[in-house]
């Protein structure tokens, strides 16, 4: 976790959009870091035993979690059930991942899914460089739950509607007609 005297950069506090990648060797993180535009997302390369600290260093929470380990590291389940964090998993998903997690069998599929999430555009909204969402007209809002909903669209999150209160407030003050809404069948919350 520390190199002896200093904290690893990947575990230092980060306020920009982050993708935490949990793997044993780091190959998945290296691939994603080189695939994704660095001005749009900071990739934190964490080992399983560092995962809880890496996730906690993202303020207020990571935009996305990716991984390829067979067991979900301790301490992640709580963050994943409290916050709208996109989850992509390479291979069989470990127990404890939320229902909205996506498991993909190939690295290329996972990398493409992460790229699509970064480039998502819905109702005139898109992710801003580095952090936040650009609303129609160019106004910037720093609302992580809205960022998550835009990235996940048209899918959503298996979380309570109350988790998206700040996104609903921002949208109600904008010209966008979409709102976070709970699907009566699946119970998932998405922009509709």
């Amino acid at each position, binding site marked *: 976790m520390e*190199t*002896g*005297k*200093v*904290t*690893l*950069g*990947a575990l*230092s506090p*980060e*306020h*920009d959009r982050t993708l935490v990648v949990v793997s044993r*060797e*780091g*190959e998945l*993180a*290296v691939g994603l*870091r*080189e695939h994704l*535009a*660095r*001005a749009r997302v*900071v*990739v*934190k*390369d*964490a080992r399983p035993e560092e995962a809880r600290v890496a996730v906690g260093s993202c303020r207020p929470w990571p935009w996305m979690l990716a991984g390829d380990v067979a067991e979900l590291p301790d301490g992640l389940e709580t963050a994943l059930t409290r916050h709208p964090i996109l989850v992509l998993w390479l291979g069989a998903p470990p127990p404890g991942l939320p229902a909205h997690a996506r498991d993909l069998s190939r690295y290329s599929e996972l990398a493409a899914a992460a790229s699509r999430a970064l480039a998502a555009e819905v109702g005139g909204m898109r992710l801003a*460089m*580095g*952090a*936040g969402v650009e609303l129609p007209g160019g106004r*910037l809002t*720093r609302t992580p739950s809205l960022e998550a909903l835009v990235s996940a669209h048209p899918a959503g999150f298996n979380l309570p509607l109350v988790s998206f209160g700040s996104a609903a407030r921002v949208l109600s003050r904008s010209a966008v007609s979409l709102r976070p809404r709970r699907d009566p069948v699946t119970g998932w919350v998405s922009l509709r």
Partner: protein
Amino acid sequence: MRANAEVLLLEDDAEQLDELRLHFASQGFHPLAFRSASRAIAALRSGGPAAQPLMAIVDWDLSMAPDRSSSSTDALCVLARDASDCLVIVYTANADSFRVRSEINRAHPRAWLHDKREGDASLMERVDRMLDHPVADLRVEDGSFVVHVPSQDQCHHREAVRLVIRHPEIVTFHSDTATRAVRRFGDWLARHGSPATVVSHGNRRYRLTVASPEPAADPAAPQP
């Protein structure tokens, strides 16, 4: 009068360090050269001119360093945490190894990687390209000031230079003095009618954005 921008150089080979120092001095920079990570870290933590360099060039392999009590990983971690507004380039002869790339990423998630086997000239060209790339009607001169090309007016705030060379990334600044300078730069851009504007992301984080379409590719990215 203006101060030359500081560039932190960490290279264990004395000859190569001299070459880097001469190159940057000839380009108008103030090179701060170190052969060991411990000295570089001490300088970064001193609060002096080396504490907030505009750019850092770090050799990954410091096996010839006179003092090996700290590693390049340590130096990168300190840069990532304490000087996040500094543009960092790490060069290594093992750029093909994903383990090395992973270690570098873990130490400094924003560092740029350069393949040492391409030679010093390639590194210098890379650095010059990163410093020289224009943003809208702005360009950086000598790493020290921003020029509004149509009017040839100059903005001498160091923080303005950071925003231009890091465009389109967000830059985190470390003091109220720096953020005041950023806001003054924003006013300066507006007075000059530049299509570039300063956007605040809160927590002393700012980026430069351009009203016309942003460049499709990052100009600082390695050439194919």
